[in-house]
């Protein structure tokens, strides 16, 4: 009896260990697949052109900072980064000013119509907005201005902010505002003094999410930006020259572009899913 059970236990334990081992192996595979392009991007940025164009990948090499130096020095990159930063901050800031109050009333007063209209902005392909916008800005001689870029980037930031904040405001129990009103505060005061501070984590998350997606925006910047306002996603094309694609420079630029948003995302990872599914799924 005891011998049988002992063997039986050993077998199940072994099976479990094998299963766990396989699962860990699968996990490793998934992580490798997800991260490989990033790793490759970083490796490429640290190699020379000769190493990057070798038919056999060069795994062991002495890393060089030359690519990063050339990106930062020669190609106005810092200027473009500044443009991206300014536009993203403005689009986020204005998105907050416009979006927070609207999200509040949508949440409290169940304004489905407005919510639906915002949804339309999220669904419609950006190119649909771009052509009329270009026509308008062209007419007003406002192409290549921050005003033009920020206005169009609002199409990206506003729906994100509003929909995420609706779910956050939904979570703030209405009795706090009631209590404030009993004390003599008006609706608006209740909003500013009570609801906003309580939803602060959500506001931070919404802001960062909006910032990230503004930073990543390509199509609007491609057409509406010019030398005064060019953003980094567009600037990265400067590294594709004829004959030789400057692999190292391209990779270095890609790293520098992606780094800020990756860092920011790690701060708000809890809320990313919530933000991208417009609150339908809580992360």
């Amino acid at each position: 009896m005891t011998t049988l059970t002992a063997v039986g236990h050993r077998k199940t334990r072994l099976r479990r260990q094998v299963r766990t081992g396989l699962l860990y192996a699968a996990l490793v595979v998934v992580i490798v697949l997800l991260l490989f392009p990033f790793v490759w991007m970083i490796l490429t940025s640290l190699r020379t052109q000769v190493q990057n164009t070798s038919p056999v990948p060069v795994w062991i090499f002495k890393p060089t900072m030359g690519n990063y130096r050339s990106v930062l020095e020669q190609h106005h990159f810092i200027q473009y980064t500044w443009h991206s930063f300014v536009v993203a901050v403005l689009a986020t800031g204005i998105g907050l000013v416009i979006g927070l109050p609207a999200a509040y009333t949508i949440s409290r007063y169940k304004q489905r119509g407005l919510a639906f209209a915002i949804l339309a902005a999220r669904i419609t392909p950006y190119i649909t907005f771009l052509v009329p916008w270009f026509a308008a800005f062209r007419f007003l001689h406002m192409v290549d201005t921050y005003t033009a870029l920020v206005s169009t980037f609002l199409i990206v930031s506003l729906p994100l902010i509003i929909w995420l904040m609706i779910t956050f405001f939904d979570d703030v129990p209405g009795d706090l505002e009631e209590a404030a009103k009993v004390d003599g505060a008006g609706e608006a005061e209740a909003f500013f003094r009570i609801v906003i501070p309580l939803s602060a984590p959500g506001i931070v998350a919404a802001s960062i999410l909006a910032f990230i997606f503004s930073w990543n925006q390509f199509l609007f910047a491609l057409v509406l930006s010019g030398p005064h306002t060019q953003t980094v996603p567009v600037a990265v094309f400067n590294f594709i020259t004829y004959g030789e694609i400057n692999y190292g420079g391209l990779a270095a630029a890609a790293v520098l572009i992606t780094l800020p948003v990756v860092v920011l995302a790690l701060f708000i990872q809890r809320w990313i899913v919530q933000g991208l599914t417009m609150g339908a799924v809580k992360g």
Partner: protein
Amino acid sequence: MRGSWIDRNLSWVFPLPAVAAVLLLVLGPILTNLIFSVQNRSWGTFPPPSFAGLGNYVSVFTDSRFWNSVLNMAYFTAIAVPTETVLGFAVALLLNRDFYLKGVIRSLVLLPMIATPVAVGLIWSLMMNPELGILNYLLQVVHLPRSLWATSSKLAIPSVALVDIWEWTPFMTLIILAALQSLRTDQLEAATIDGANAWQRLFKIIVPVIRPAIVIAVVLRTIDALKTFDIIYVITQGGPGTASETLNLYAFKSSFLYLRIGYASSLLVVLALIVVGVAAFLNIWTRGAKS
């Protein structure tokens, strides 16, 4: 203090800026597209704008390049979304347990969908370069034939879809994972008590419960897949020829390369109708599934 004018009218004062923004940013452009679509116009002063009636729409529906672009859009979405869903589900199952470094792994899983698509697309196009790319080298190492990747007409869309799958499977994973983790213990207990095996447990009990989350994820992803522009533009520009040209890209080229604004606007109207139509259809079709 109490009952000031703002407070009494809060319900429309607060949303006012947003409504104005929507009118200006969303409605205005849509109307403009409709107007432009019945005209022949270009960006400069030449040729001068003229009325074209429904001529552009007739052109659109008799344009084989238009149908090709719609097909490409559908093909891309049909490859990307189901694959992302299935893979996302599998990875979510994998991550749905306590293990060492769980928080770190969850953070890493985010990265593909947060990284700037243009940068990601360029890196992938480097990796997929038929002569110098690392992917062909790896294929060679495991004795598989080298591929033309995105430079081949047949593989252009699948190659770009591959990049999209890499980028957005994490999205599906995180959603499904969240749903899995919110499973109530009684549901989980019901699953184990019956003595059913793992597969039965999975499909008969767990999936139906998390179905709403999956549905939302699929609907959102489908709409976003139809909207994809950045990675296609950066990797293939719609090529070779028009092999990977989606309606998005065709409209872009029509307006900014061929300067046919009237025609481009009619393409955009059709595109918007398609996307909205798909969104509405999916919404209605899955209405019952969303609790």
